[in-house]
């Protein structure tokens, strides 16, 4: 099969879009891992809660205002809906993250790592059924809500037929990437968090409350997962099991990038996203296996991942 330049470009863009979503999930996971030294198995469930919430908010707003059409009004409705979805997701996931850290995780930092795995796995199971209670166990189709969004023309301006929603995700993803790096490099809170990650005791000695930092970081991670869910859901349907694949793929991403490295997560996510997307046209059965193959390859060459570690976990 001949691959035209346009098709290749579209596939690459798809890959980048998926990569950005992966980055949003993996960044939360890697920040929690780098600072709290906890692998949060419930991260995928937080992701899917974000997705379900976003669908609900979108559906609600569109039910009131009507579907977003083309033109300025349609775009405005859409932007409004997205904003509302993000706000509601934050309103739900920040407190959830806070509670998880303050109530459950804080008690067991000094125990064997395996207990943290059991704990976050228990939370995963509990969230799974909480979702079942709230949203039922049948999948929710979302294309009816979102297909209208794609009628807003964007990429046609440059002579390319590419879904508007994907363009939007890439834009939002870029903003998140820049925002996160800015937060950790330039703001005071970000520096405090990094200091805590590098040397917990020293940070305590100079007056940082590690408890609060940990809570903040977990809440931030939970929000990032939910935000990714809110951005990721449109093209497909939402199911109860939707948390699993992103969770495992973001494991792959953070292993490729190096545990706890934000830069590594970014590079890893784009790498996995693009290569996976190319596989879909070149060799379809390889789609699922490709990320794992990249991971194995990189680990053979560079066992600590592309960018090593960020925090104190050497």
């Amino acid at each position, binding site marked *: 099969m001949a691959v035209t330049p346009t098709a290749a470009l579209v596939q690459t863009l798809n890959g980048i879009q998926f990569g950005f979503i992966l980055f949003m999930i993996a960044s939360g996971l890697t920040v929690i891992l780098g600072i709290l030294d906890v692998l949060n198995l419930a991260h995928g469930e937080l992701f899917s809660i974000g997705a379900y919430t976003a669908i609900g908010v979108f559906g609600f707003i569109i039910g009131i205002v009507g579907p977003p059409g083309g033109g300025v009004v349609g775009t405005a409705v859409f932007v409004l809906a997205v904003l509302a979805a993000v706000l509601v997701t934050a309103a739900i996931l920040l407190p959830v993250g806070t509670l998880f850290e*303050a109530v459950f995780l804080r008690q*067991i930092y000094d125990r064997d790592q395996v207990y943290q795995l059991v704990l976050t796995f228990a939370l995963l199971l509990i969230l799974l059924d909480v979702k079942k*209670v709230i949203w039922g166990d049948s999948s929710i189709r979302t294309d009816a809500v979102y297909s209208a969004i794609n009628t807003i023309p964007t990429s046609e301006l440059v002579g390319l037929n590419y879904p508007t929603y994907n363009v939007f995700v890439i834009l939002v993803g870029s903003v998140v990437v820049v925002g996160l790096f800015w937060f950790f490099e330039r703001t005071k809170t970000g520096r405090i968090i990094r200091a805590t990650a590098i040397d917990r005791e020293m940070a305590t000695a100079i007056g940082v409350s590690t*408890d609060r930092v940990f*809570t903040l970081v977990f809440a931030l991670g939970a929000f990032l997962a939910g935000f990714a869910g809110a951005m990721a859901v449109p093209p497909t349907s939402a199911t109860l099991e939707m948390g699993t694949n992103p969770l495992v793929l973001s494991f792959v991403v953070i292993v490729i990038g190096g545990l706890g490295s934000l830069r590594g997560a970014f590079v890893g996510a784009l790498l996995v996203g693009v290569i996976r997307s190319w596989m879909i046209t070149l060799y379809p059965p390889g789609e699922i*296996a490709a990320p794992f193959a990249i991971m194995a390859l990189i680990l053979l060459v560079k*066992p600590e991942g592309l960018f090593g570690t960020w925090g104190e976990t050497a």
Partner: protein
Amino acid sequence: MPERVDRDGTPAYRFLGVEVTRREAAFLVIGVVFLFVIPDIAGLSDSLQLSVIHQGLLFGFAAVGLNLLLRHTKLTSFGHAAFFGTGAYATAVLARYAGVQSVGLLLLGAIAAATVMAAIIGVLSLRHTGLYFALLTLAFGQLLYAIALGQSALGGSDGLPIRPGPANQPLLFGTAFSPDVYQILTYYLTVVVILIGLFVMYRITQSPFRNALDAIGQERTRARFIGLPVRRYVWAAFVISGIYGGVAGGLYAVVRQYVRPEGTLFFLRSGDILFMAILGGFRTLAGPLIGGVVLVFLQDVGQDVTQYYDFLTGVVLLILVYGFPRGIVGSLRSGGIVNTRLNELRREPSVLSSWGRTAVQSIEQKVAESLTSLRIILFGVD
């Protein structure tokens, strides 16, 4: 014949290299007898199904293998379903494509496949420790799941039946039995395999090899300094634990006569196997087996009672983490939390009310703490 020896001042008996005190011997006999009479007990009650216990024992057996890594080398494998699934799928492939009918040959195939798989995954993931190792094993497990799901030769998400030959089932001793008899016979086969497996594991944990693994688990660098081939030893332990998983998977396939990716390779199964070890008590030999039966039983009963059985399992795991970190067997043993508390209660029954007060107080304290944290996050001030 049993030979009397002295173990730390208590009289003990040594037989086939196994040293037990009288108390332990009694538990052992009760345990073995119990394993053998389960089919009869299961016949008496509707809620207690043989197949459920059987499945619990099989997953628990895989957890016994995992426990070798967890207990001594302090490595947390989160992908042990890979070996369980490899064993099960090897059995299915042999039965379907090679027409192998004998249960023994099918199990040998399962063992061979699991050994190879464990050797490969071990080489790739044992360069790392800690979370990296957990993540890597999980990723490899999920890779196998993806392969089983994607290959039409392996049946995709529908899975593969194990029905070789005209008898439509694997043959025990070259004979086909009626389904009821087959179920009970495979159960006894499982019991025998489990007893052998536990015996082998006991011998391993009494050997210098175990001491080497303990040393590696405590401090790798020092272990290397005293001349232990760390990588090779850990790899050997990994392969052994993988073989246990493979045997369990092969038996599972033979018993159920059907394998699906969801039931054998999915990462939640890996989680189950890991949590069985912890639930039963990962510092004990038979704990993982008991944890396996309890967890599977819990899920089965939960499924009957409510559709929210995951929630139930989750809550049990939470209670386990906070209340009984040594697991069921570890807590019941002398010196365990249950034993200590029972003794206190026997001496002074009024201690019960003070326990209640302490529990309520600590819960109140935690709630207050978390509310404070919430306030800080939301408003930035205390």
